[in-house]
């Protein structure tokens, strides 16, 4: 779960991802029916993971990032802006496919014991300067990234050591088993030891540069203006043949300006198109808007155990008073799908879909927009008119609009919702520090269920003492069931347990799911090949874009 | 100052007057109906003659000389004739007007400080007129300016030329102004209260310098002032104005000793005496402006001798003895007025 929507703090994928995408496709089809508006909304069948393969070369690909990357240091790469750039420049030990599946990249690995993994670094990989990628470099990168000053250090929380144990061998030992670590290796770009040590603190800045082994090389960065990367013609991996000679990134964060630039063809493409730019770009004759699968979503979380929202009737009323279809259409212009459960359909392992589906359908029905029912719930509750404070992050247009809609709809059933705008930093802090959210009853947060293992968010949110268990939810039965599920390795059995758990905590209704969002990509019609699922973030995404 | 200058009375007679103003009327057109400021004013200045134009503020005297230089703002409508040397000033072409202003006449203003550009040096000010109108070369003009300053009794003229107006005292600056007016060798000088804004201590000195120059060069002068004593002392002829019209005109000593109009007498009576300490006799009431007065005599409202006739019929300017007076009762009041004026 990531409170700050501008930021992707984790990007965990799973081997179930392929299946997942399929599930997501089916599901969104099921959910997007209904609604009287003839908005040119995305039919969920349109969710696309990648465009047809490109064949033609391009001189310069002009691409927009949602903001200027703060740094290109792989150890600090966590934002929408830096992710795709860094992962195009720097290979990880693993890499992703558009369907979220993982495959070995710079190394293969062998799990020798639950607390010991051995990576074998391939011997033909070279850095941009032609020197080989060695085990030394890999071990250096892992140990460097593990330093607490780097944002990605949390990945290494359980790592005891990473040592060179053979010519091409790096052995990683753990203080406790950590399956996620293996997956995260796609997100840790390997840097050259010699260059990195020399660059010191300047690594990944405009002046410090980088030395990696990816299909593109860092070229130039003029802060405030543009960032340019050029093709690495000696790229070691024959399977990846980049088509654009250079990629030039602009940093437009403003929706209006971005839509205009894309419309006029001044910029060829962009990921993470803001919702408000969607209607204008859907009409574009210059390029095409593509909606791709993603596991992100928006939730309204009740963040205090006290106050008016302590009453379950109030919570249930809020669930019913939220017109999720309208929000998906009006606020997200179709770039999102209504969502009714904490464990979004996108995170279901596809084989267990039949187990999850009935429970989800039940929730859908229970939480359908129903003003009359909500009003009855409020009337029968202890609610006395105290304002319910809903916090949103300043400058986040979609959150603001959702909040305003909820406020209006809540008013019609007698709930007095007050919107409180928090500065981004304060909002982020409030996400993990209870003292910073005193007086706040609910927060609109962007939810990132990156893993297809539903247990992960459940563990974060509903075990006593966890940072994100905002309402101090403490149900011994639920705790038991979670522990039970964690030890159950039969997928079906596990799924059944999770559904039971879900039934318990969803009855508590401390999270009001709003929508699951899609990755929105715009690409000029002259080009194709782009990865359009959120997997783009962990991939050398720009190596695939080329002329038709 | 109160002693009349015996040399002042020269050349009363001549063939053609240098400046002749006939039935001058001035009104402001941005009012509806237009506001009359000056009405039916006639006067002449002969070559070498000094004429004093006397009256309170608002009597229209400054407007009259501005009209004579064609310096009135666009919103002022002028009627009547103003002739200089037989030519109508109003009909001068642009270049003729420039030649008239730069060659024939010159003007000395009341407040020299506001009439000089504070950003230009004294020297630049002095020579600009003649240089800009191509009457003189710059170096010649410089020499002449230095010479004139010296004549004005300004020591260290070379240094003064490089100074700015704010570095000069008022009296000094007015002398510069006088020098400037003489640069182009004019035939007629308009002097608009040239000493009023100065310190009392330097007034007479500046006046003396001005008169000396006027007499040395035998120039005509139209001297505007509210100070009847001063005017009588330095001019040959006096024209007294009230509310935009001429109420009395005559030889300076006649008017000064034998005022024929109650207003002139009242002006004389209200001047402070230099020999006696006594309360000032002020003229009752407020000075009127031309557009405020009705059909009768403009002064009727303040005149102790006013009759019904005065209030209903405007008295024309008519000869009484050697002067011309606009008063119905001038003759019968002659003795009273003389008595009042010298009291």
């Amino acid at each position, binding site marked *: 779960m990531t409170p700050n929507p501008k930021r992707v703090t984790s990007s965990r994928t799973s081997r179930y991802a392929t299946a997942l995408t399929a599930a997501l496709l089916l599901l969104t089809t099921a959910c997007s029916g209904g609604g009287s508006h003839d908005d040119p909304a995305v039919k969920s069948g349109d969710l696309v993971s990648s465009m047809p393969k490109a064949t033609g070369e391009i001189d310069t690909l002009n691409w927009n990032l949602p903001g200027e990357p703060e740094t290109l240091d792989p150890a600090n790469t966590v934002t929408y802006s830096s992710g795709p750039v860094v992962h195009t420049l720097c290979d990880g030990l693993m890499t992703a496919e558009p369907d979220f599946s993982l495959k070995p990249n710079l190394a293969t690995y062998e799990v020798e014991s639950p607390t010991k993994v051995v990576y074998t670094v391939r011997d033909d990989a070279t850095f941009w300067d032609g020197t080989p990628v060695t085990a030394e470099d890999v071990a250096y990168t892992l140990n460097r990234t593990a330093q607490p000053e780097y944002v990605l250090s949390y990945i290494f929380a359980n790592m005891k050591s990473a040592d060179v144990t053979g010519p091409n061998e790096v052995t990683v030992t753990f203080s406790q088993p950590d399956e996620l670590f293996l997956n995260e290796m796609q997100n840790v770009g390997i840097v050259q030891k010699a260059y990195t040590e020399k660059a010191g603190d300047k690594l990944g800045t405009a002046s410090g540069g980088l030395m990696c082994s990816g299909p593109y090389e860092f070229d130039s960065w003029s802060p405030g203006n543009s960032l340019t990367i050029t093709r690495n013609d000696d790229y070691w991996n024959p399977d990846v043949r980049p088509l654009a000679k250079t990629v030039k990134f602009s940093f437009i964060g403003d929706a*209006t300006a971005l*839509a205009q630039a894309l419309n006029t063809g001044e910029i060829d493409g962009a990921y993470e198109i803001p919702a408000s*730019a969607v209607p*204008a770009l859907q*009409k574009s004759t210059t390029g095409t808007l593509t909606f791709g699968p993603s596991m992100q979503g928006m939730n309204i979380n009740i963040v205090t155990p006290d106050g008016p929202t302590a009453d379950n009737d109030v919570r249930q009323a809020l669930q019913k008073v939220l017109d999720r279809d309208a929000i998906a259409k*009006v606020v997200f212009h179709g770039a999102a799908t209504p969502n009714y459960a904490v464990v979004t359909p996108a995170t279901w392992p596809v084989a267990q879909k039949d187990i999850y589906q009935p429970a989800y359908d039940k929730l859908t029905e229970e939480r359908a927009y129903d003003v009359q029912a909500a009003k009855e719930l409020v009337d029968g509750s202890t609610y006395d008119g105290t304002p319910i404070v809903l916090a949103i992050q*300043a400058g986040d247009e979609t959150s603001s*609009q959702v909040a305003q809609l909820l406020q*209006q709809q809540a008013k019609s059933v007698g709930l007095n919702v007050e919107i409180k705008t928090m500065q981004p930093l304060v909002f982020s802090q409030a996400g993990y520090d209870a003292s910073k959210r005193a007086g706040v009853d609910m927060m609109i947060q962007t939810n990132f269920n990156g893993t297809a293992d539903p247990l992960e968010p459940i563990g974060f949110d509903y075990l006593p003492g966890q940072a994100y268990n905002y309402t101090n939810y403490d149900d011994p039965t639920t705790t038991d069931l979670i522990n039970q599920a964690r030890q159950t390795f039969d997928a079906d059995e596990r799924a059944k347990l999770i559904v039971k758990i879900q039934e318990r905590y969803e009855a508590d209704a401390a999270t009001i799911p709003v929508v699951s969002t899609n990755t929105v990509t715009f690409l000029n019609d002259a080009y194709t090949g782009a990865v359009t699922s959120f997997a783009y973030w962990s991939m050398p995404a720009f190596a695939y874009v080329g002329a038709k | 100052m109160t002693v009349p200058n015996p040399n002042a009375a020269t050349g009363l007679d001549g063939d053609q007057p240098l400046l002749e103003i006939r039935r001058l009327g001035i009104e402001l057109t941005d009012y509806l109906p237009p506001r009359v400021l000056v009405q039916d004013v006639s006067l002449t200045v002969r070559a070498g003659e000094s004429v004093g134009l006397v009256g309170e503020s*608002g009597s229209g005297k400054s407007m009259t000389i501005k009209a004579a230089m064609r310096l009135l703002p666009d919103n002022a409508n002028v009627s009547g004739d103003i002739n200089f040397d037989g030519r109508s000033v109003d009909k001068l072409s642009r270049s003729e007007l420039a030649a008239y202003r730069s060659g024939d006449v010159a003007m000395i203003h009341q407040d020299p400080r506001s009439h000089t550009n504070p950003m230009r040096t004294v020297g630049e000010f002095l020579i600009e007129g003649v240089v800009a109108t191509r009457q003189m070369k710059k170096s010649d003009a410089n020499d002449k300016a230095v010479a004139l300053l010296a004549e004005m009794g300004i020591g260290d003229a070379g240094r003064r030329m490089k100074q700015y107006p704010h570095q000069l005292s008022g009296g000094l600056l007015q002398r510069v102004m006088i020098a400037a007016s003489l640069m182009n060798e004019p035939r007629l000088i308009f002097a608009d209260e040239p000493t009023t804004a100065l310190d009392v201590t330097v007034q007479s000195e500046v006046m003396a310098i001005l008169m000396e120059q006027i007499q040395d060069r035998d120039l005509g002068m139209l001297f505007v002032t509210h100070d009847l004593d001063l005017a009588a002392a330095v001019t040959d002829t006096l024209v007294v104005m009230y509310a935009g019209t001429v109420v009395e005109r005559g030889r300076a000593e006649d008017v000064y000793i034998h005022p024929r109009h109650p207003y002139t007498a009242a002006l004389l009576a209200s001047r402070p005496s230099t020999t006696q300490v006594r309360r000032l006799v002020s003229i009752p009431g407020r000075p009127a402006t031309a557009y405020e007065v009705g059909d009768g005599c403009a002064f009727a409202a303040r005149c102790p001798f006013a009759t019904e006739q005065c209030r209903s019929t405007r008295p024309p300017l008519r000869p009484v003895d050697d002067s011309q007076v606009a008063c119905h009762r001038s003759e019968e009041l002659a003795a009273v007025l003389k008595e009042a004026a010298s009291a």
Partner: protein
Amino acid sequence: MSAIALDNTTTPAGARRSKDKLLVVSGAVCLLVALVAVFGTVLAPHPPDQTDVLNASLGPSADHWFGTDGLGRDIISRAMAGARVSFAGAGFIVLGSAFLGTTLAIFAAWNGGWVDRNINRVLNVMFAVPGILVAVLASAIFGAGFWAPVIALTIVYVPFYARVVRSSAVRECKMPYIEGLELAGVSSWRICTRHVLRNVSPIALAQATIAFGSALVDFAAVSFLGLGVQPPQAEWGLMVADGRSEILSGAPQQSLVAGACIVVTVVAFNVLGDRLSSRIGADR
């Protein structure tokens, strides 16, 4: 002597008569906007906060004269409701800074000497700090909202009054009658409030009227940047910002309506202030 110096050019007097029409018209517009600010929510054809997602982003129609915004709210109703916030913001700024500025000016003028010189120095420093910068920083410190920019701009506008009022207060304090009152044993407080303040207040008033326009613009600019009033409050600067995404889809109504409201109000107040101050003879 005479009250009217006719020898001078008479244009100001002549001009006054015709431009008084401007005074009346601008005053009427100001009054109208003020009325809308007070009663706008009552007069509005639709509830300004009422969302209607089925009718979002509509063009002008009989029901919605200027169409609806992205959440289906009636634009003209929001503009009317927004008048109140914009007006209140500018009003607080102007009143607060007028009070502080005038007090400071009279204090400085009355005490003179080093007090005056130092106050003047501080005012000069304050003049060197751009208002929008202070307002933006204030939002960072107090959090975005209504009060942060109001407080910041109030402080920023103080020198705007203080400078003008001070010079006329200094003139006033040097008047002989003040010395007379002082010699007569009248207290400083009484002289300052009863005499000096009374005589400088017309200038302060004219200054306030002119300041109102700039205060309105600055306040709206902070909202435009997203650092002032927050949604769902209707405010003109916020509406201009809100409508930006719809400009691209060829529906600029929201931005334009709110922008026009700002411009008309500011023009009216500027003209009114200008006429007032030239009547007082303190024309800039």
